[in-house]
């Protein structure tokens, strides 16, 4: 009873689940300018380091029979390459480095964000909106460059009855412009929600009686978050491939 009161007094039950997403300058000061090195900068840099470690250092021996680290790099390569080829088609393979960049960044950032005391860069809309807008703009530009005005055929459902087509076209246009919104919010929302829930469960651990349950819940939630970290990167990438397929082959 006493410890409970004590814990509550210490602020154990005052939850700050969103504090982990605060962006703080690393080297003093409060002001976050354009070039300020913040915790977000640090964890983005670590994502680059992780990608380099996985894809460059791991494969440095170029062995015919791969070592374990090389297998990981080859696995990631094969995974995304096959996804691009299967979903977006053979002619989308030239976009493979871009899609691979997106996938490697998101997957690295998601997993790095799961480290205790780390900062999840992909939980910020600023990051995911840029990623989603990059995909949206690329797909739109590629669509018009490849197909010209024919790209607008994407919105004209030729298989539907003529009377319905204008309505469907309106719906298609709306859904097309909602894509970057859902694309970005899905990723950031999933990561943010998972981390916030972990923090809330951790807050309950301040109550001695509840803390074992809290630890179990955090463990289970963490397992789920590991899954989410990969699945969200996968979903983001495969949706990019789907959008790219629309741009390359706009006919329904």
């Amino acid at each position, binding site marked *: 009873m006493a410890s409970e009161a004590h814990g509550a007094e210490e602020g154990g039950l005052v939850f*700050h689940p*969103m*504090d982990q*997403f*605060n*962006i703080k300058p690393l080297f003093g000061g409060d002001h*976050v*300018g*354009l*070039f*300020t090195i*913040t915790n*977000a*900068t640090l964890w*983005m*840099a670590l*994502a*680059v380091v992780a*990608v*380099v470690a996985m*894809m*460059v250092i791991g*494969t440095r021996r*170029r*062995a*015919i029979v*791969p070592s374990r680290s*090389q297998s990981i*790099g*080859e696995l990631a*390569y*094969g995974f995304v390459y096959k996804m691009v080829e299967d979903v977006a088609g053979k002619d989308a393979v030239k976009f*493979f*480095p*871009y899609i*691979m*960049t*997106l996938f*490697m*960044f998101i997957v690295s950032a998601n997993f790095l964000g799961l480290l205790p005391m780390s900062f999840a*860069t992909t*939980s*910020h*809309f*600023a*990051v995911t909106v*840029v*990623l989603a807008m*990059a995909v949206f703009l690329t797909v739109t530009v590629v669509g018009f460059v490849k197909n010209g005005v024919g790209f607008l055929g994407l919105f004209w459902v030729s298989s539907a009855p003529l009377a319905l087509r204008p309505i469907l076209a309106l719906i298609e246009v709306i859904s097309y412009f909602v894509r970057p919104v859902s694309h970005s919010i899905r990723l*950031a929302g999933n990561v*943010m929600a998972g981390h916030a829930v972990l923090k809330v469960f951790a807050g309950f651990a301040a109550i001695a009686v509840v803390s074992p349950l809290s630890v179990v819940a955090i463990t289970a939630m963490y397992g789920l978050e590991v899954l989410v970290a990969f699945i969200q990167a996968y979903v983001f990438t495969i949706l990019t491939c789907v959008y790219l397929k629309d741009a390359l082959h706009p006919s329904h």
Partner: protein
Amino acid sequence: MASTSTDATSHAAEAASAPGMPQLDFSNWGNQIFWLLITLVAIYFVLSRIALPRIAAVLAERQGTITNDIAAAEELKAKAVEAEEAYNKALADAKVEAARIVAEAKAEIQADLNVATQKADAEIAAKAAESEKAIATIRAGALASIKDVANATTAELVSALSGKAEDADVAKAVDAQMKG
């Protein structure tokens, strides 16, 4: 600084950050976007310049090695099949040859046997004829002897019974008797 004032500032900061999400604080979006773009460009160059060509080369090389190995294995397999066929053919040839040799030997032996049988038959026939001839001679000799003995015996018997015997009569009687 008084503790109350720090409390107040922290409380104020709390109040500022607690209801809203840091994600919606647009004042730091520029910073994040700037560093994100640098991050993405860095990852893109690392991947497109170093990692992806390297992995593609390794995978292609491995594919080539595998293809070559499979081709070599297929070649060896074809060779093995060929060798087996040659072996089977040799075996069949040898069997045919063996059968031919056996038949030849059989025929030869049969011919030899026939010749030997014929020779033996001829010899036997000759021997038999010779023997028959000898037997005939002996028989003739024996008949003559029997006649002589019969004549002598008859003459003796007649002389013993009647005291006197005419040789010519005796011979005549014996002849008659032997013919009958």
